[in-house]
């Protein structure tokens, strides 16, 4: 894996279970030592300057790992002390982050009484307490219900808007698509890295889907194929699927041509390849088939 994360960037590490996402996060947070190779965070080598790296990174582990019998403030205060923050700084930051994530009113409650989403937010607050240069979020919404996952994604979005450098390990494609500036596909190494838009541009298939009131006739298909910019057109039930590099530009011409040919149009839709499809392509897997088939 050879990759550089820019300051203020949100990088997604995307891959199946066992791909090496958590190992990568643990290496970059100096939790484990690399068996070979080098890595540095904020200019500090993870092997030679592990303490300096640990002081500069914040991590949200797969599970929140909170102390259930301690209050929200006590949980944060404990970590503030471990990071060597003085009392005034601890108090100010604890209040700031509990307010930011909407937990201030529950500050005196023990963490064991929190919902999963609240625990995850408290764990994110813990990761931010020492004002780290880089935040590593390992599966932040795994095992959360949709409502809790929404709350956590909203919290991550807040960090993103604040210009934080974030490395987000996930296998949630929608999450990566929405939150990340670039996505790194990982499976035992780095397979590909790029922005979601560029991945779609480079790997995706784009086109138009036209639904008609009655099945398309041969003449209508031929008319569409004759239009400039159309790579292919095929009949699908009561409509047509048209392959093109620029579906938005082609759509008006398609509508005009079909209406002129006497077709009755029910719907025209611009199609993008989903990130899910791109993921399968990059990983070299087919849904429902064993990896490596």
């Amino acid at each position, binding site marked *: 894996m050879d990759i550089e994360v820019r300051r203020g960037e949100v990088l997604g590490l995307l891959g199946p279970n066992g791909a090496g996402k958590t190992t990568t996060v643990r290496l970059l947070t100096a939790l*484990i030592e690399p068996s070979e190779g080098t890595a540095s965070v904020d200019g500090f080598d993870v092997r030679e300057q592990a303490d*300096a790296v640990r002081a500069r990174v914040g*991590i949200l*582990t*797969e599970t929140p790992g*909170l102390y259930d019998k301690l209050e929200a403030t*006590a949980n944060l205060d404990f970590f503030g002390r*471990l990071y*060597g923050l003085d009392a005034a700084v601890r108090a100010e930051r604890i209040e700031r982050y509990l307010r930011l994530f909407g937990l201030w009113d529950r500050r005196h409650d023990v963490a064991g009484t929190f919902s999963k989403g609240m625990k995850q937010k408290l764990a994110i607050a813990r990761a931010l307490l020492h004002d780290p240069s880089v935040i590593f979020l390992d599966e932040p919404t795994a095992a959360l219900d949709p409502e809790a996952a929404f709350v956590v994604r909203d919290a991550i979005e807040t960090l993103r808007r604040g210009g934080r450098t974030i490395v987000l390990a996930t296998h949630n494609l929608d999450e990566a698509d929405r939150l990340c500036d670039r996505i790194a596909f990982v499976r035992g190494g780095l397979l590909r890295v790029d922005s979601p838009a560029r991945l779609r541009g480079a790997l995706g298939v784009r086109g138009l889907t036209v639904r008609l009131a009655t099945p398309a006739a041969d003449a209508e298909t031929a008319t569409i194929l004759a239009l400039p910019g159309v790579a292919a057109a095929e009949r699908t039930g009561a409509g047509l699927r048209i392959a093109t590099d620029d579906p938005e530009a082609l759509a008006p011409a398609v509508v005009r041509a079909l209406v002129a040919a006497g077709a009755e149009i029910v719907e025209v839709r611009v199609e993008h390849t989903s990130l899910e499809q791109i993921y399968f392509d990059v990983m070299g897997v087919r849904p429902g088939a064993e990896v490596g088939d």
Partner: protein
Amino acid sequence: MRAGIVWTILRREWIETLRNRLLLSTIVIPPVILTVAPIILGAFIGERSLPPELEAAVLQQRPEWAAFTASELAGAFAVQQFLVFFLLMPAYIPLSIATFSIIGEKQARSLEPVLAAPIRTGELLAGKAVAALVPGLLAGWATYVVFVLLASLVYGPNLFGVVTDPSWLAGVFLLGPAVGLSSVVAGVIVSARVNDPRVAQQIGGVIIVPIVGIVLIQATGTVLVGAAGYTLMAIVVTAIALFGLRIGIRLFDREAILTRWR
């Protein structure tokens, strides 16, 4: 090793211990029983004497008790048996705390964020070890003070001398901490391998077997261990504990905790 970090870990451990009712009950209840039991026992054996053979064996071991009345001798022999409880307390209390602490963190997966902080494994282990050791020692010592007062009150001033003689002081203040340290080490080693605190305590409880051996030997009256014996035992137990600590530190390795502790 930074004292501030060790203290931070120790402080959090104690707060959590104080909020764990089950754990707290195992720390508080036995010492209370041990301070009440001698009074009840004293009421029953106060006017009794030892069987002649046992009395002869005890006096052979403790010639300084020859001036005691038969009743005082019976009392002295009885209270002598309680010394073992002041060795059991520093054995089982740290074991309970250490196993609850380490396995509790394993189950909650709360060690990873701690290890991600700029602290050293030795600081973490030291905080946990001291947090487990001190309550057992304090409970044992506090109970001892109450026990001495009660023993003097119930059995008379001669018995005060018995429970404060050098063998008791060596047992409580030298062997007790040594047993406590070995108990913490046993807790660390066992907790690294199992995921249930009760199982860890059962396995770690093996440490109590030699102490039970001391009870059995003393109960026969054939050998009453003296100050030199307890001091020697304290040295041997401390040496074994320090050797075990090296194993414990290796098991507490950052990478092992993250990759193998499940």
